[in-house]
């Protein structure tokens, strides 16, 4: 297996919003995605992926090491390779942000998900792409999500992250899912949150201007709630959507809660605000 063959196709396996339980490697899923981003997507089929995996597993350690050593010059050649790839595959240059994001993820997965993929290659490829300049937070989130997977397998000889593991990692980047769905990224704003929950403490997925209410302790729950609800009411006067970060990443369904968060939700409900699972936000009543 020649090292260069890994780049003959983009391995693009994606967290489609409605496809949580579907086989994301199916041609249908990729065709749908291609229509969404108006960009042809070629996929490495499951059988082909399995063949790569078994080839790699059978390879002796010395040869695996040799392949890995090839990654360094390949990194240096990436920009040239990328241009050649675009020419050879006749994929038009990415124009919309969704196209750029699809392109970016295709590159990442091609590098990271194939068995002989270049461990440690992801940051270089991300930095090489224009999306970093245009959407730095998204690029960082995608790179971090993928890197976190690649890193966890770094010390296991012959074992990179599998596509399924990468898909799972990317599901924690809601911006990515939103971008695929809508072709655009909305600005952030006030986020209701559950104290200490992973959804609140994750470094991933935040948009520009996302924020929490952080208020001084008044010494007891009752005055704290009075202060909290007062500030929420003030925020409601602006009629800007109020985001709810304690939600399921793909469906947008609210996660059930109690306490302050539930009280905040009730406050919005009582004032006629409606929760939109697609946007993950509460919106003011229509006048």
């Amino acid at each position: 297996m020649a090292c260069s063959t890994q780049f003959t196709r983009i391995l693009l396996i994606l967290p489609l919003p409605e496809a949580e339980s579907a086989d994301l490697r199916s041609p249908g899923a990729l065709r749908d995605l291609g229509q969404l981003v108006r960009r042809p997507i070629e996929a490495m089929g499951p059988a082909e992926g399995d063949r790569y995996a078994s080839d790699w597993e059978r390879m002796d350690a010395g040869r695996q090491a040799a392949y890995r050593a090839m990654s360094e010059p390949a990194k240096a050649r990436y920009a040239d390779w990328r241009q050649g790839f675009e020419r050879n595959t006749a994929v038009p240059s990415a124009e919309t942000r969704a196209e750029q994001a699809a392109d970016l993820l295709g590159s990442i997965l091609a590098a990271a998900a194939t068995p002989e993929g270049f461990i440690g290659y992801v940051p270089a490829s991300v930095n090489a792409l224009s999306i970093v300049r245009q959407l730095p937070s998204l690029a960082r989130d995608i790179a971090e999500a993928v890197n976190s997977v690649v890193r966890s397998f770094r010390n296991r000889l012959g074992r990179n992250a599998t596509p399924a593991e990468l898909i799972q990692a990317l599901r924690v980047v809601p911006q990515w899912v939103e971008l695929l769905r809508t072709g655009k990224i909305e600005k952030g704003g006030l986020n209701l949150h559950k104290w200490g929950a992973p959804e609140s403490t994750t470094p991933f997925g935040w948009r520009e201007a996302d924020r929490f209410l952080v208020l001084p302790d008044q010494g007891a729950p009752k005055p704290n709630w009075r202060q909290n609800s007062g500030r929420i009411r003030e925020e409601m006067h602006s009629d800007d959507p109020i985001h709810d970060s304690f939600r399921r990443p793909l469906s947008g369904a609210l996660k059930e809660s109690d306490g302050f968060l539930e009280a905040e939700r009730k406050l919005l409900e009582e004032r006629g605000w409606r929760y939109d699972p697609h946007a993950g936000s509460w919106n003011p009543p229509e006048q």
Partner: protein
Amino acid sequence: MQGVGTLRSNRRMDDIDIGKVSDSVLGPVLLPLQFRPVVQRPDHAQWKSDAVTFDIIFDRTNSYELDMILTRHRGLVHRFDPFSLWQILRFKGTGAPNDFSNVQVTSTDAARALLLQMIHALVEKGPEFLSGSREAFTALRRWNARNDAAYTDGVALRGARERARRAWARQDYKAVVAALEPHLRRLTGSELKRLEIATTRLRTGSR
């Protein structure tokens, strides 16, 4: 229980250090189960076994809510798969009047007593979650997905009912239909009747 309250609690809290409290209360239960302490902070205690991460989260600056959370390690997925004790107890259908779904503590004594109750409930009702049973967590995950969907539907339905009620009062039948129609299967008899009347009047008015 003294110091365990609701949003209405006006009691000033003492300087609760949930890390220390957890160490003394949970240690005797968790250590024999092969959990080891990983984090011990005033607002967070964490224990880990080979299969499960066990967290106590305490919001000591705003709501004073205390939560016991279990997460089964399974590669990356655990990042968004933590489950609170109340979810485990509801899933198990224990029917206990107190499922610890909304607990606030404002004193160290109350925190100690509450943690003791919580860990006993977990050991008694859901020991398979402490041992990290894959089947148990998978079943809980499915139940929880359905539960969240139903909860979100409930939020939407409540809003729709309120909009329909207001629209009915001002005889805005178009708004009544718009509010109720998406929730046909969950409407009460009187709501269905209103929807029928509103639809008829809309149709009549358009003729």
